């Protein structure tokens, strides 16, 4: 049952909610908890200052009120409700519209001039809440910063008593509750040492929010510590406070499983590169372009962006190096004109300087931008920036998720990655190690030869496509990006001037060969003509001989005729018969 309800914005009915889960509407969080918080039960939300407890809790209520027809009450012990409401405006949640029918704020901050004498309890608050929740039919409730009011209680036993009172009340009313509490400092586990640490054992679900700083960059993550009666993702998941509230990145690639595999090819923007790849990149594939600085990584990705725009596909170009206008100008110098695509809105170039923000922040921003822009093609130049601003593990996981996400959405992704020339990284040791995940990996390199530095392009891998194994020379000119045929000599690819020389030499040789052939043909023609003449005279002679021969035959025949006629006449004159004549004749 919980599995069938893991949709992010799936509306839920009241009857369902009681037995199952209450979705929070937080992207990713409902996946981690397999559908949301335990319905009709209590969840403890623990975190340090600024870890996002209040926002998560409020988003839970807002989603309930907007999408699930579950009105909610927010009990504010720390911040005043006016401040919470005004802070929430920045997320675009229209709280004013929901108040007070489906969202009610209760200001329960202890007054600063409050005088305390002796023991007290929270019975008054619960009585007031009971009246309120019955009136509005509340299904969800949040107690924000319960620790503030607990701090007023004199001893641990009393605190414990009040927590149990609250918990029992929540269970009795079948409200889905969130209690937020501070953890000392950044260490979420330290709450156990606190007097109300036992709350973690009491509640049905506990979520720990963590906000840490690594190498000067802020990282947020959350972890579901326990969840009675349900499976959940036990790992820490990075999250971000974005423009529309919390967004949790799920580490496992559920999206990828559903990704459609396309056989459609898209142009790389360089004609001969398409040929090398057997027709271009696959739609929805991820392409990695690695190379040292200045090897035309940006140019190659710019060519892809231009080709995408020419096909009329909306494209997002994220540059970590240069500003939008710089990108346009620099690419224009090699004949890649992006300006009018930017003007007509099909291309969005964003500059995200690498100074601040973790990889997570960028990932979420890129996702949001791509979604808003409706991008079908995405260029990130370069992703290796994340390597700098985050630790290796984070950057790796961010890159993984970027690829999974773009695959899941059928977005063709081109990312460039800078290789550090000074370091000893070989081709296989590409930063981020995303080369294993990328479908196509193009490596750009400098080839130093005969006092020249020329750009070489090779396809290291390209899944599912036949591809050229040759290193080609990449030439940038006003007319655009072209690849030339490679000249191999002595096991080396010739480039630049050497290639030109080789080309010229071949041209000369070809001309010479052509001339020789011509000469030979002329000579053969002459011989042929001569033979024909001879053939003709011989034929004439032949005819003459034949005539002569025929004449000879005729003369001979008439002579013989004359003789036989003479003999016949002689026999007739002698009067001998033919038979004896024969005998006489044979014996002369």
């Amino acid at each position, binding site marked *: 049952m919980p599995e069938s309800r893991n949709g992010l914005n799936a509306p839920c009915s009241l009857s369902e909610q009681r037995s199952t889960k209450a979705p929070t509407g937080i992207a990713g969080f409902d996946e981690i908890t397999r559908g949301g918080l335990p319905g009709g039960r209590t969840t403890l939300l623990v975190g340090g200052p600024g870890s996002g407890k209040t926002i998560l809790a409020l988003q839970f209520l807002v989603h309930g009120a907007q999408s699930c027809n579950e009105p909610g009450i927010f009990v504010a012990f720390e911040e005043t409700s006016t401040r919470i409401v005004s802070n929430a405006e920045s997320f675009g949640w229209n709280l004013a519209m929901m108040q007070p029918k489906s969202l009610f704020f209760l200001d329960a901050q202890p007054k600063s001039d409050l005088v305390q004498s002796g023991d*007290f309890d929270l019975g008054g608050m619960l009585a*007031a809440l009971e*009246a309120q929740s019955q009136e509005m039919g509340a299904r969800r409730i949040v107690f924000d910063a319960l620790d503030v009011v607990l701090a007023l209680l004199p001893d641990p036993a009393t605190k414990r008593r009040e927590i149990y009172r609250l918990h029992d009340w929540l269970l009795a009313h079948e409200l889905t509750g969130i209690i937020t509490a501070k953890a000392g400092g950044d260490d979420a586990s330290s709450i156990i040492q606190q007097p109300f640490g036992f709350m973690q054992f009491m509640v049905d679900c506990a979520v720990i929010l963590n906000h840490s700083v690594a190498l000067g960059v802020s990282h947020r993550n959350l972890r579901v510590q326990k969840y009675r009666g349900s499976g959940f993702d036990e790992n820490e998941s990075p999250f971000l406070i974005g423009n529309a509230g919390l967004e949790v990145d799920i580490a496992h690639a559920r999206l990828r499983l559903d990704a459609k595999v396309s056989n459609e090819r898209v142009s790389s923007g360089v004609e001969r590169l398409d040929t090398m790849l057997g027709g271009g990149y696959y739609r929805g594939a991820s392409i990695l372009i690695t190379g040292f600085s200045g090897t035309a990584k940006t140019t190659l990705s710019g060519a892809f962006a231009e080709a995408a725009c020419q096909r009329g596909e909306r494209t997002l170009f994220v540059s970590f190096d240069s500003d939008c206008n710089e990108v346009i100008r620099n690419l224009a110098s090699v004949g890649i004109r992006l300006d009018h695509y930017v003007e007509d809105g099909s291309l969005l170039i964003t500059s995200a300087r690498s100074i601040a923000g973790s990889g997570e922040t960028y990932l979420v921003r890129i996702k949001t931008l791509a979604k808003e822009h409706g991008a079908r093609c995405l260029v990130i130049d370069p992703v290796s920036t994340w390597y700098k601003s985050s630790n290796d593990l984070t950057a790796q996981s961010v890159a993984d998720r970027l690829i999974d996400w773009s695959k899941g959405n059928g977005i063709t992704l081109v990312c460039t990655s800078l290789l550090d020339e000074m370091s000893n990284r070989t081709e296989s040791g590409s930063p981020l190690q995303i080369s294993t995940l990328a479908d196509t990996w193009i490596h750009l390199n400098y080839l130093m030869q005969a006092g020249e530095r020329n750009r070489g392009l090779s396809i290291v891998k390209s899944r599912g496509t036949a591809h050229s194994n040759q290193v080609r020379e990449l030439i940038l000119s006003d007319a655009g990006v072209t690849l030339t045929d490679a000249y191999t000599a002595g096991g080396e690819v010739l480039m630049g001037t050497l290639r030109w020389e080789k080309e010229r030499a071949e041209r000369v040789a070809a001309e010479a060969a052509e001339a020789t052939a011509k000469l030979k043909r002329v000579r053969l023609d002459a011989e042929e003509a001569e033979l024909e003449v001879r053939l003709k005279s011989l034929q004439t002679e032949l005819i003459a001989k034949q005539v002569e021969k025929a004449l000879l035959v005729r003369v001979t025949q008439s002579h013989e005729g004359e003789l036989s006629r003479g003999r016949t006449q002689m026999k007739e004159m002698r009067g001998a018969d033919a038979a004896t004549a024969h005998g006489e004749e044979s014996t002369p």
Partner: protein
Amino acid sequence: MNRRDLFKFQLYVAGDAPNSAQAIDNLAAFCQAHLPDQYEIEIVDVFREPKRALAEGIFMTPTLVVLTPPPVRRIVGTLSHAQTVLLALGLKDLTA
């Protein structure tokens, strides 16, 4: 503060919860001891009148609201420490 001022109290209690009952007793004893014939007490049960508690912002019980003399003050708890109550009512110097 004039000694003859009338003290108007509202005591919010949560039914017959132990600390609420204790507060009622403590308040009565306190008034008898320190403010004879100078006080009015209204007991508000939040279970019976939750809307009133909500409107007044009474979330902890028992809570004593001192309506007059101004300013309005609130004292939370069983009122077991008479000294604290005296201090809050500005009566400390008179009993010292």
